[in-house]
């Protein structure tokens, strides 16, 4: 286990910046998630830490050691790839043991560590199989096993759940969290899925166009997004972001943001923002319903209790408490007034 630090790290590919001036301090044993859309630089940032890409500028430290010029094999990190990258010609046992053999760990210890990892991940019966004989979920577990068996300073995970179906993804998400808490290993986890980021990370680093947009706990990001991008990216369904005058929220140089779950049907609190909108579609979710609305030509989404009777084509009044309103500068897209 060790802390990890990015200091003013940049990466250029043929003059195009994939990561720009990234500053990030990851605490010992912390689970941090790098999240953002495709091409935001999150995977590049992770690959630079792994040593699979060279940094163009800045320095990366694992513990007290600057690792910019250290080969991947000497960084003492373990990585779980999106494709799992298992060795197809080796059995599960040999996939797990390969890294330890490279480190010249005694045979008996290799055996003990491989069997322990297999037990932790409940894959004892798979040990003699080859990757092609395993399901997607089982391969994913082998990839995790290969990482934990090494007992590295940090786990690097590059979208490890992307190839799993929705049900297995939720299950494996919990397994990874339990595993990380049990082992206490510093973990840097890359995903484009904000739900994964919110549910897994101690802290989340939101990236876009190679720039770190905001770093904080899931709650901080949710309640105090620093800019329009973070506000729209974090949270599902996404925050409504509309010109402020449309909902009487402020001047024309502002963007008003409010979350679908903070909208109520009817007049609501007297000091709240009140506006009319037309119901376009209602999605029934069981406990709640998701109402897709339109005000003028601007689409809005409201998450309402199922008891609210709404039908397609209804004109209705909605209220948003003022303390839940976020205001952003329309030009800089930075927050000028945060929600509660």
């Amino acid at each position: 286990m060790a802390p990890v630090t990015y200091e003013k790290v940049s990466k250029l590919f043929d003059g195009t910046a994939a990561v720009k001036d990234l500053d990030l301090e990851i605490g010992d044993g912390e689970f941090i998630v790098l999240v953002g859309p495709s091409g935001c630089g999150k995977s590049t940032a992770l690959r630079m830490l792994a040593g699979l890409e060279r940094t163009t500028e800045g320095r990366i430290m694992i513990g007290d050691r600057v690792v910019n010029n250290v080969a991947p094999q000497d960084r003492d990190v373990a990585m779980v790839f999106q494709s799992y990258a298992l060795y197809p010609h080796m059995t599960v046992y040999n996939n797990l043991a390969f890294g330890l053999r490279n480190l010249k760990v005694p045979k008996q210890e290799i055996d003990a560590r491989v069997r322990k990892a297999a037990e932790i991940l409940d894959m004892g019966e798979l040990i003699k199989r080859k990757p092609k004989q395993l399901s997607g979920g089982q391969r994913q577990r082998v990839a995790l096993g290969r990482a934990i068996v090494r007992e590295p300073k940090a786990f690097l995970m590059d979208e490890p759940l992307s190839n799993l179906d929705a049900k297995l993804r939720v299950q494996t998400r919990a397994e990874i969290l339990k595993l990380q808490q049990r082992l206490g290993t510093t973990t840097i986890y890359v995903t484009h899925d904000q739900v994964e980021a919110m549910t897994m990370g101690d802290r989340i680093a939101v990236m876009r166009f190679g720039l770190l947009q905001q770093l904080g706990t899931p709650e901080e990001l949710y309640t105090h997004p620093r800019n329009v991008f973070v506000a729209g990216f974090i949270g599902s369904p996404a925050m409504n972001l509309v010109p402020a005058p449309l909902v009487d929220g402020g001047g024309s140089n502002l963007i008003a943001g409010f979350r679908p779950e903070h909208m109520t049907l009817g007049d609501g609190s007297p000091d709240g923002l009140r506006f009319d909108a037309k119901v376009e579609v209602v999605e029934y979710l069981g406990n709640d319903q998701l109402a897709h609305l339109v005000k003028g030509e601007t689409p809005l989404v409201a998450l309402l209790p199922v008891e609210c009777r709404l039908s397609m084509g209804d004109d209705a009044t909605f209220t948003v408490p003022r303390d839940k309103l976020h205001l952003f500068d329309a030009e800089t897209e930075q927050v000028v007034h945060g929600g509660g």
Partner: protein
Amino acid sequence: MATEARTERSIGSERVREALVGYAFVFLPLASFLIFFFYPLGYAFYISYFDWGPLGKIETLGLENYRDLADDELFHKALKNTLRYTAVVVPCQMALGLTLAVVVNQALRGRTFFRAAFYFPSLASSAAITAVALYILASDGLLNALIGTDKAWFAESGTALESIMGLNIWTTSGTMMLFYLAALQAIPTDVYEAAAIDGAKSWRTFWRITFPLLKPGHFFVGVVSVIGSLQVFDQAFIVSGGGGGPNYSTMTVVLYLYNQAINDVRFGYAAAVGVILFALIFTLTVVQRLVFGRMEAA
């Protein structure tokens, strides 16, 4: 019930129609394959049972040609030379091809040039290369001038076949490189990245990751190389002037077949040599398939 039966019938006729369309697409290549490959093969089997001259069948011999081959010392010599040639050339071709492929697969400056340069000998005519080699390996040739000897490499029985081996290993290395390069590029990059993070240094990565993952490439290159080596002819023909000399040291099975058919006009006997060579190639290919199949399963 009647409707179900009708539906089954219509599905059946649809399948037949689809199959016929498929056969129509492959008809021409299949026909040329049958005419130019299977027919001569069958015909070779057929005439090997006869004493067959330029005007056709002379006498029915049954297995006589095969029995004669069993006692034919020159054929034994040709077979021995061919097998020795194959045993040396195949591993060397594979090793050199793999080495070159690994080199030109690196992110080297000018690798396109090296790929073209290494492949170039494979493009040149083997007859032309052999003709040039005759000068280079002559007693007053370039090689002797470089190493300070006066050996006539192609004219001494102790070195003639070995010289052809060397020549062929060099000329075919580009083709083998190309096959291996395709196989190397089929290995996913992330497996190498995983190995690097797993602490494997380059030598260990090569032997533990690259080499085993090239198994389909090894099989293909091995089969192509074995077949090519067992059929060695042109270099031996040019070097020895067709006689397989000196002292039959460059007599190969195909050269012997050629001499029997063209010089001695014994088509039946030559066909029997061809059948034996076919059986040898077929057996070795099946053995290779079994060995690689077993390695795959292991």
